[in-house]
């Protein structure tokens, strides 16, 4: 009997029954779960963001507080001495200027050349395009580290070691296949009629690229620019290998060199003040570009 009646229930009835039951019994349970969810999320993000908080707190401490035999949580009398000290350090200022110079030049050069190459791979039909494109994708497999040794020898031969050239100029040649790929994917989505019309009006590919495609690709360009900015601002291996003189150091190399491994006591407030100032542009870029960045990861991830 019971089995029969169950069989007679339609699917819609079951769904209705199910939703009704859920609505009746879960209010309290759901509330507790929501609360637990928020507790988890808040603690999680607090833990994740904590290193930044600690960086800031330490930069406001005195030397004695930072190196005390016990942990000083919050500086008793917050000081800006560490910042004054690090701003007076001409090597630090110099490395700040170096980093800005290198980043701006490399990002600018790479962005333009990547956009040019992506245009060729997405908007022009030419014989051999697929072969060259496949070749480009396959270079993504070669790790940067495999190239750094021979590139070092090459730059050494032409006398570029101890200059900014090795970390800025290679980017001008559409450095970064992943970036070309990301931009190409975006440019493929732009309707083809636009440049067909322009071509009939007698526009050259250079004009179409600059006047039609580039303005329409702004979100993707912003994504690529942010990725490149972050990569160059954080870059450690290449500057370590190529710069070699203190006057050319970029921020990551210089700030890392502030820690003296031979000593047990470090000038932590000064180091952390330098860290705060190094991190600041990244944070600003992140806040402004986060929607592009978060979108870009997913774009390159799901379509790659």
């Amino acid at each position: 009997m019971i089995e029969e009646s169950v069989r007679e229930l339609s699917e819609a009835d079951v769904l209705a029954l199910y939703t009704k039951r859920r609505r009746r019994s879960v209010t309290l349970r759901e509330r507790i779960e929501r609360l637990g969810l928020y507790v988890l999320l808040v603690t999680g993000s607090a833990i994740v963001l904590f290193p930044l908080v600690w960086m800031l707190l330490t930069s406001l401490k005195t030397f004695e507080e930072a190196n005390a035999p016990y942990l000083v949580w919050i500086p008793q009398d917050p000081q800006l001495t560490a910042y004054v000290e690090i701003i007076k350090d001409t090597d630090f200022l110099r490395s700040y200027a170096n980093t800005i110079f290198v980043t701006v030049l490399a990002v600018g050069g790479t962005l333009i050349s990547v956009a040019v190459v992506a245009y060729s791979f997405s908007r022009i039909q030419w014989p051999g395009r697929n072969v060259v494109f496949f070749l480009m994708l396959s270079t993504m497999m070669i790790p940067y580290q495999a190239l750094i040794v021979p590139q070092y020898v090459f730059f050494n031969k032409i006398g570029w070691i101890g200059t900014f050239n090795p970390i800025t100029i290679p980017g001008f040649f559409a450095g970064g296949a992943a970036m070309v790929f990301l931009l190409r994917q975006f440019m493929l989505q732009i309707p083809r009629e636009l440049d067909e019309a322009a071509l009939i009006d007698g526009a050259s590919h250079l004009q179409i690229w600059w006047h039609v495609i580039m303005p329409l690709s702004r979100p993707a360009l912003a994504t690529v620019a942010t990725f490149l900015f972050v990569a160059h601002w954080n870059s450690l291996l290449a500057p370590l290998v190529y710069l070699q003189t203190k006057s050319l150091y970029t921020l990551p190399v210089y700030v890392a060199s502030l820690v003296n491994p031979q000593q047990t006591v470090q000038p932590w407030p000064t180091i952390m003040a330098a860290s705060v100032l190094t991190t600041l542009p990244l944070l600003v870029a992140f806040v402004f570009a986060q929607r592009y960045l978060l979108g870009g990861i997913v774009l390159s991830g799901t379509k790659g």
Partner: protein
Amino acid sequence: MWSSYVYTLTWSAITVAFIVASSVAVGTLARLVVRARGADRRRQHDTFSGYAFASPWIVGFIIFVLLPVLASIYWSFTSYRLPNPPQWVGLQNYVRLLTEDRDFRAALVNTFYLVAFGLPAQLGVALGLALLLNQRTKGENFFRMAFYLPVILGLNAAVLLAWVLMFNANTGFVNTVLRSLGKSLPPVNWLTRAFIYIVEITNAFFIGLQNGNYVLLQKVLSSGFPPPHRVPLWLQSPLWIKPSIILLLVWSCGSMMLIYLAALNGIPREFYEAAAVDGATRWQRFRYVTLPLLSPATFYNLVVGMIAILQLFEQPYVLLRDSPTVARGGYTVVLYLWRATFRFNEVGYGAAISWVLTVIILIMTVAQFKLQDRWVRYELR
């Protein structure tokens, strides 16, 4: 002061001129070829533009990838110390690397350790965070940003130094918190000690693999279960350097989380409703609906994450800072490559290391792709 900037700007201008000239040259050459083959005007024009626009990459590929790769393959069979010319030594570099060099073996063991333990930890945390964020909470955007932020900052030496400070074994933040938690809550203390015991045994075993003797493991085992006051030693001990690096890797798993989040958004609601009608519990829904449908995202994260860990450099560089006692416990292959090539100026040897690394990355990536049929499902069956 300004001269180094002016120098690079001058060279940038020269480079731009060179790129433009080479683009026109490559484009013209391509046009000549298609014209000889009898293409129409439009086709000629497109061929010229196509090659001219792609030329920066083509020329860059030849200068910065193809020639270096060929040169580096050759140099890996030579003894090459700048500025002396390279001398052919055959397989000697590779033989020394794979059979004699204990530091390289240590670096290899460390790198595999990080892949074996760090990658699952990253994937697990990333998935957990994505599941939490997928519940449509208020402030979702803020939480997503917060969890993604370490990806932006995590490779910067300046931020890594904050971790060095927090990891200080005596007065660092992490251990201070562990100590006070352990004092007020006995279960936490017990858990911490169990964690210390497991980590130290595992790491002592791996250090044994590196050295070929298991003295350290015996020492750890004979000292028994850690006493109540013990805390992790983090950067001060070769037993703890790799767990410290893994913690940093987990901290910056935000891009994996975003991939998972995007994949979770793509799962149709009906699947869960159907599963609920069938009476599936929450765990069953996760195990038989969510997890299989996430497997393409897991696969992507696995491959990208594995390659990233195999190429790890920044974290061990900043955390180790040439500290000789822990160095062997924390060297990664790339860190060792950097030391061998640029500290000791052995170009030929460095080239050999870089090729061994490349082959490892290739093999492991191909293996992942071969294995994917067994567990990656692109449709729910």
